[in-house]
C-alpha cells in the first residue's frame, strides 16, 4: 500500500513518534538500543517528539502499542518480530495511525494491515563482504576454518550467517565452516563457551550474531587472540586489533528514515534497507584485515551493482 491520504500534520503540532521496545529493553546492546538512537536522531534532526515504552513482558506489547496509538502519535514503531501479532491487532483498531515494525517476520506483517510498514534489512549483504574478508584472511594465513555464533535460528540471524558463509567460500572455496546457536541473546558466557569450542576446533575467525550474548564471542577472541567479527554496530572499539570487521545493520537509520519518510508523506508496506541505500554495511576493518580492503570494497561494489546476490540460506548449518 502507499501513503495514506491524510493531510500533512499541521506545523504547530509536532510530529510524534512512539517506539515500543521488546522485552530486551533499551540496554540490550542490540536493536532496541539502536532503534532508540534512531529516534533520538529524529528528535534532534527532524524535531519530532519521541516517546519510548519498554516492555517487561509479552503482556505489555499490546497495551504499550495501544497507549502510543491512542496518544496521538503519527508513527508507532514496534521493535522486533515478537510484536508482529499484537501490532496487527492494534493497527486494525487504529487505521489512521501509521505503524512500523523492525525485522518483520519474513515480510508477513506488513501484508496483514495496510498501515503497517515493515522495516527490513538485507543482513546477508552485510554478512557477505564480512565473510569475503574472512576468506581472504584465512587463505593468506593458510588457515582452514571460520565460524559463526548465532543467538537463535531466526531470519535476521540466519541471513547474516548465510551471507557470511557464502562470502567466505567465495574467497576460499575450501574453507571449513562451523556454526552454532547459543539459544539466547543475553548470556555472554554461553556465547563465549561456544566460541571457545569453535576456536579449539580450529576456527580462526568467529562471527558473532547474537547481540549482547555475542560480546562473549569477542571476549573469547580476546582471551585466545583470535579474530572476531562484530555485528549490528561497528564493534571495533571493543577490541581494536581483534575485531576483523563488523557486519552492520543500521537499525537507527531505519527508524530515522521511516520517520522522515512519513513526515514527507511517504509510507510503504516495506522499507528495504540494504547495502545500496546504506541500511547495512561493514564497519572498521582492523590491521589484520587491512591488506584486503580493496578486494572487499570491490565485492561491495559488485553487490551494490547487483552482480552478486548474496544467498539467504545457509550453506552449512552446523
Amino acid at each position, binding site marked *: 500500500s502507499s501513503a495514506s491520504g491524510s493531510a500533512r500534520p499541521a506545523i504547530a503540532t509536532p510530529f510524534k513518534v512512539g517506539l515500543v521496545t521488546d522485552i530486551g529493553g533499551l540496554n540490550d546492546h542490540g536493536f532496541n538500543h539502536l532503534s532508540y538512537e534512531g529516534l533520538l536522531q529524529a528528535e534532534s534532526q527532524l524535531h519530532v517528539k519521541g516517546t519510548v515504552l519498554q516492555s*517487561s513482558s509479552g503482556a505489555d506489547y*499490546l497495551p*504499550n502499542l495501544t497507549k502510543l496509538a491512542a496518544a496521538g502519535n503519527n508513527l508507532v514503531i514496534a521493535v522486533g518480530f515478537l510484536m508482529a501479532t499484537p501490532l496487527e491487532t492494534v493497527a486494525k483498531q487504529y487505521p489512521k495511525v501509521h505503524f512500523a515494525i523492525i525485522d518483520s517476520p*519474513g515480510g*508477513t506483517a506488513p501484508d496483514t494491515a495496510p498501515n503497517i510498514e515493515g522495516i527490513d534489512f538485507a543482513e546477508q549483504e552485510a554478512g557477505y563482504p564480512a565473510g569475503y574478508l574472512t576468506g581472504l584472511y584465512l587463505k593468506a594465513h593458510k588457515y582452514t576454518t571460520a565460524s559463526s555464533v548465532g543467538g537463535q535460528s531466526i531470519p535476521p540471524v540466519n541471513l547474516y550467517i548465510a551471507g557470511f558463509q557464502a562470502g567466505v567460500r567465495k574467497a576460499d572455496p575450501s574453507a571449513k565452516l562451523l556454526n552454532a546457536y547459543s539459544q539466547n541473546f543475553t548470556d555472554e558466557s554461553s556465547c563465549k563457551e561456544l566460541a571457545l569450542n569453535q576456536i579449539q576446533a580450529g576456527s580462526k575467525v568467529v562471527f558473532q550474531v547474537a547481540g549482547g550474548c555475542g560480546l562473549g564471542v569477542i571476549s573469547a577472541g580476546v582471551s585466545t587472540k583470535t579474530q572476531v567479527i562484530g555485528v549490528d554496530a561497528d564493534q571495533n572499539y571493543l577490541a581494536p586489533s581483534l575485531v576483523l570487521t563488523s557486519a552492520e545493520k543500521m537499525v537507527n537509520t531505519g527508524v530515522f528514515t521511516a520517520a522522515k519518510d512519513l513526515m514527507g508523506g511517504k509510507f510503504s508496506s516495506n522499507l528495504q534497507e540494504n547495502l545500496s541505500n546504506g541500511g547495512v554495511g561493514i564497519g572498521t576493518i582492523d590491521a589484520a584485515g587491512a591488506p584486503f580492503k580493496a578486494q572487499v570494497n570491490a565485492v561491495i561494489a559488485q553487490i551494490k551493482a547487483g552482480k552478486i546476490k548474496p544467498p539467504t540460506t545457509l550453506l552449512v548449518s552446523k
Partner: protein
Amino acid sequence: MTLLEDELEGHPLGGEEESDQAALRSPARLTAFRRGSGAITVPVLTTVIAFLAGGLIVLASGHDPVSTYTSIFTGTGLNWLFPWIGGAARATAAGNLQQTLLQATPLILVGLAVAFAFRAGMFNIGGQGQYTVGGIVAVWIGSSFAGMSPVLHIAFAIVAAGLAGAAWAGIAGVLKAVTGANEVISTIMLNWIAIWLGVYCFQLGGPLQNPKMPQTPVSSNVVAGAKLPVFWGSAQLQGLDVGIFIAFALAVVFAILIKRTRFGYEARAVGFNPEAARYAGMNVGRTWVRVMLVCGAFAGVAASLDILGWKFNLYTNDIQVSQVGFYGIAVALLGRNSASGTVAAAVLFGALLTGTSDRNIHLSIDPTLVQYLTFMIEGIIIMLVATDVITLRLLKGGRRIAVALRSRPAKAARPSGHGAS
C-alpha cells in the same frame, strides 16, 4: 467466603522454637505457624511499609516518590474502584485494572501450585516448568480442531493443559516418592527441561511451529472458537477475559480441597509430619505424588488461561523469558499458602507489574531505571512478608521489637555480682 476465612484462622503459637524431629522442618509447618498472625492487617500493613521503604529508594535515586507512587497507583487501575473517578480517567483506569487482573490470573494459579505443595511439606520450585508444559499443550490444542464447538474446545484445551502440567509435576512427585529424589532439585531441572522442550517445539522447523509463518519461531494461532470470551473491555485490545473466574473458582477448589476433603487432610498431615501420617496409615509417597499432580494441574491451567485469553500463540522467546513461576513462589509465600491470601497476593503482584510498567510510570521517572525499582520494591515486600514480626511488633506498639533486638552485650554491661567475684 467463610470457607476461605476459616482457613485463615489464627494459630495460637507464634513460632516453634526448636524440634527434635525432622518432620518439623517442613516449610508447611513453618508457614502454618506464621499463618495465624493477623490474616488481613498484616499483609496490608506489610505492603504499605514496603512501599514506604521503596519510596525511600525512589527518593535516594533523586526522584519524587509521591508522584512516582501516584502514577504507579493510577497505573494499577485500582482507582477505578473510586466512584468519583469519571470520564476519560475512568476509561483509562478500567483499562489498567483489566491488565492488572489479567496479570493476576496466572499468578493466582501458579501461586496455588506452589502453595499446595507447601501445605504438603514440599517446595515446588517447578511452577515455571509446569506452566510452560501447560502452555505448549494449550496452544497446540487451541490452534488445532478449528471446527470444534467453542465451549468444548476451550474446556478441552484447559483440561489438557492441566493434565500436562500435572504430568510434569508428577514426575517430581513420583521421583520423590519412589527414589527419594529431593523435589527442589527435580523441579528446578524440570523447569529447564520444559523450557528447552518448548523451544524445540516452536523453533524454526520445530514440530509445532506455525507452518504459515515459516520464518518465525512461533506456534500457530489459537483459533477464534477457542479464545476465552472477554467480558470487560475490548475483545481486540486485550480486555479482561473470563479466565479470572476460572482462577477464582480454582482458588475455592483449593480451599475446599485443603480444608474439607480427605485428600487435603492427608496432604496436610503429610506436610506437617510425614512420620505421623504414616503412623495414621496414610501412604506418604502416594500423597506426595497426588499433591504434585494437583500443583501441576493448577500451573498448567494457568498457562492455558494466558494462551486462550490473550496470548493466542507462543514464541520460543516467551517461553524463555517467562517469570511466572518465580513470581508464583513469591505470591504463594506472600499469601501464606492460603487460597484467599494467594488470590490477594496475586492481585497485588499483578497491580505492581502493571502499575510499574513503563507506560504508566515513565513520565515521572527515568524509564531505564523503572524496572529495577520495581524489582527492589518487590524484593522489599517479600522480605517484609517474611518478617511479619516487624509488622506485628509495630502493631503492638513496638513493645516486642525491643525483645527481638535485645542484645546480649547491652545486658552484659550491667553490673553483675558474679562478675565482681
